[in-house]
């Protein structure tokens, strides 16, 4: 859906989206990384289980919610990606029992 413009000098690090290694760069929000990682979505909604991608990127739509390092329903457009971060796309309602 999106691509990052080539910049050879820029450092990068790895995060894990649903367990898969994914390249991220300093300044990236988690939502930005999700958008350039196929299929470019953040979650399936808890109401109709429809797929959603980040929509506003500024904290007012709540469509970029994902689980980040175990914390559920994080607004990923407000969180910077950090090395080793584990990101899971939520599928429907979050479970409250293990």
């Amino acid at each position, binding site marked *: 859906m999106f691509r990052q*413009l080539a910049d050879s000098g820029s450092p990068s690090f790895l995060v894990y989206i649903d367990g898969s290694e994914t390249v991220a760069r300093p300044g*990236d929000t988690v939502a930005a990384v999700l958008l350039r990682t196929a299929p470019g*979505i953040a979650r399936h909604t808890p109401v*109709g289980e*429809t*797929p959603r*991608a980040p929509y506003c990127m500024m904290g007012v*739509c709540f469509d970029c919610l994902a689980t980040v390092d175990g914390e559920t329903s994080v607004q990923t457009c407000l969180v910077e990606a950090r090395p080793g971060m584990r990101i899971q796309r939520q599928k429907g309602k979050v479970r409250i029992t293990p």
Partner: protein
Amino acid sequence: MTSEHDILIVGAGPAGMAAAMQLAGLGLSPLVIDEQPMPGGQIWRASEGARPDAVRRALGPDYAQGAGRVAEFRNSGVDYLPGTRMWHLEPGFQVFMSRDGAAFSRSCRAVLLATGAQERPVPLPGWTLPGVMTVGAAQILLKTSAQIPDQPVWIAGSGPLPLLYIRQLLAVGGKVAGYLDTTPRGGAGRALPHAAAAWRGRGDLLKGLKWLRELRRAGLRWLRGVGDIRALGEERIEAVCYTTPDGQLHREPASVLLLHEGVVPSIHATLAMNCDHLWSDAQGCFVPQVDAWGMTSVEGLYLAGDGAGIAGAPAAEARGRIAALGIAQWLGHRLPEGAEPAARAALARALASRPVIDALYPPPDDDIADEAVVCRCEELTAGEIRAAARLHRGGPNQVKAYTRCGMGPCQGRQCGYSVNRLLAAEYGKSRAETGFFRIRPPLKPVRLGELAALQEGREAP
């Protein structure tokens, strides 16, 4: 860091930073909190970050100016907490915030809300599909991550921002499939009555005309007077449909569709505080009422920036300085000679072109299609809201109670104005009279565990 701050500033965009630096200059020490990881607001978002040269050039001098402001702010010694959400404000004031997963509260005498604006929701069929997002969102991706759509992108809507983004996108090698311009025809006629008054703002307007010429030269496929836009697809957008003024229906393949119909002030905090608001026909939104110093109808609660009415970054900075002077004065401090006239002159300059811009790009007032989702969180369509209105004849709060519209995590930020528009049309009432949702705290969701650990007067982590 001390927990003794008389003044809390919410938001580190142009208004919040300018206010903080003005207060610091007067020897006062506000605390600035901001939801984002870096200062700058949306306009100067990530302006401190590294980026490829082509992107830096494309973002232009107005954006580059932000890096300087942010550096000044950082060097001003003002206490600043990034990544901090305010989720409740109590009169008096007690401010509830969260940072790094921990909630805390602070009391202070004055609060300045510099929380800016958000893009107006654009409830068209298919706008919830992956691949559909706002123009502002795409521009943020360019700023934070040098990231652009990987296929030719469709852009739909109205206003200066689509033109600015298209220009920036083309400059970094992006491709535009087409610009579906929804601006009603007759812009020049609408703008003319304001032209003389806008003379002092001619710089802004000339800049806009330059963009238009550039875009035409670049061969942008620019379709004017477009309507009935819809995004089609199952798991993601696959096509965009629209009608042109000749009545022709078009359908074209699409992988990314960016929407923009102007911006509206963030009013959740001022609504929750029961501040007075007035409806603005020109901007199609509610605007909190403030006095000459930016004080709302709630004593000690100030407002600056686009949250006090859409006017752009230079006006936000001027309003930030004026509110800072107002707060200082209200707290019993004497203002330095000349500070106020300078700030007011800067504000007048910055506001000069605004009536022309408002007249060129009026807020949309076409019908929302029945099948369009209105409430993204609870997945309710315009048709369902209309049906509830016909059945119950109630205002926004009753429709909310009966349908759950606006009860999701976004707290009505994406559906409030659409419900207002639908009910006003349904009942034949004005938008002003129809009103908005009553805003329930928290302003942003808070985890149960976070609230459970809330402690009074606790230090920020």
